[in-house]
């Protein structure tokens, strides 16, 4: 079976997703959106893994992807917890207003 959709297609898509995620991290001021962007990046990784997994006819990649999801979940949970704690103290979710620590 030679599908015209090759692994490279997925790689390109993954790279695009990675880039878009990075764009979000770099540009958006809203912390929540930045966290979502990180989710995007991790999903890009997953896309890669699944594509390779398919390519190699293995399931190892998929298992890796599951772990990535776990990590994403954990980071999101902790991140949102931290955000709430911060929000309690500072009443803002805009990153460029969070600049007590500098220089």
């Amino acid at each position, binding site marked *: 079976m030679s599908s015209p959709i090759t692994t490279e297609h997925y790689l390109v898509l993954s790279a695009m997703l990675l880039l878009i995620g990075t764009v979000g991290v770099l540009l958006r001021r809203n912390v929540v959106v930045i966290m979502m962007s990180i989710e995007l990046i991790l999903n890009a990784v997953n896309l890669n893994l699944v594509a390779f997994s398919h*390519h190699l006819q293995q399931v190892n990649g998929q298992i*890796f992807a599951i772990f990535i999801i776990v990590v994403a979940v954990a980071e999101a949970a902790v991140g949102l917890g931290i955000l709430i704690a*911060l929000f309690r103290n500072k009443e803002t979710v805009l990153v460029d207003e969070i600049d007590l620590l500098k220089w």
Partner: protein
Amino acid sequence: MSVFYTATDHFVLLPALLLALFGCATLLFDFWVFPDPKQRRWLLMFLVLGELFAAVAYWRQFDFLSSHGGELTAFNGALVVDHYSLFFHSIFLVTTLIVGLMSYRYMEVRDEHHGEYYGLLMLAQTGMFFLASGYELVTIFIGLETMAVTFYVLVGFLRSDKRSNEAALKYLLLGGLSSGFLAYGFSLLYGLAGSTKLVDIGRMAASRDANDPILLMALGTTAVGLLFKISAAPFHMWAPDAYEGAPTAITAFLAVGSKAASFALLLRLMVGPLGAARVAWEPILVAAAVLSIIIGNLAAVTQTNTKRLLAYSGINHAGYILLGIVAGNPTGIKGVLIYLLVYTFMTLGAFAVLIALTRKGLAGEDINDLNGLMKKAPGYGIAMLIFLVSLAGIPPTGGFFGKYYIFLSLIETGHYSLAVFAALFVAVSVYYYFRLIRAVFVDTEEQETPALSTSFGLKVGLGITGVMTLVLGMYPEPFLRLAQLSISR
């Protein structure tokens, strides 16, 4: 495939199991038994006990390796215990123990003394375990993330302190970004090798051209993720902020434990499986090392916050350690190990003094807060002197031997210009370390401040680190042997 879970597996995993067990137990006990913050000091006993058990387990492993030689692999090669990993495990163990010992008074002062704290310390250590012992990408990654996520929490542990929140958030967001890159790199490595095992990846890297674009992509993104963890420039930006905002004990833990664990991984990856691609990564590490040394030193020069200063100093040290990896020969690797060992003690010690400075209503983070320390508490003053002199790399302290090994390896491998560069920046670093020394010894306190917040644990920690810093400088032989043992396969 027939045997699912062997005795070897158990033997290898045992320390991690113990740590996790005691960590979880601490979490549980905190909920049930110690409602009063004062009593929570007892939870430290869990940590100490856990570490003791783990130490015994490590000792058994060491014993086994010494008699049988080689290494132990477990879980189909997912975990490895060799002298190398044991070396790092002991660093983690000592670090966690000392951080635990010197924490409780500090956390009480900061009104955030919770049982979770000790549990999280141990869970972070468990994560580190997998960084040093993991021999498979998924294990490594999940270990790394366990450590990282724990640190996010720990950095933000002072919930009511805006700075702590901010530090945690910054660390988390940048950490997430870097984890993404690291994971991306790992995924490419997996795709190229068709396996997540480092052995296969090594085979793959050896068989492929070093200029293979996908391999380079994998290498680049992996390097980014790891350089971030060791806070090497230009991926260091989180460090000063996270260090400053975090509770000082956690800063120490972050500066030492996290960095050592990441170096354990970086060294294992770069010199082991990716060693074949040395031509590709060496210039990157050189650049990162040089940048780290420059930025770490320059930024520290005018710094007035001690924790930030030590953060920059940590960046600088990361640069030096990277140079050992750049040299890459046995001397260099031994140098990395010795340097990390020394770095552990001297940095922990320096932070211990800072912890003692943190009193009710006094952050103790400004350089001026060190003023007159020698008069106020000569023991602490002398200890600080030892640590700072060691950080500056002046004999007869351990710091000298760390730097010495780095120079040694650079010269041995013909990196003369790097050696000269590194040597020159030693002088720059002296400039700011001695500013601290000057504060401790020469300057006088302007107004009377409350007594230092010391505790038995802190004193023990200070004693261990101080003595070890000196011993490493005056009689490093046993440790050199250990390092030698660690790199011999």
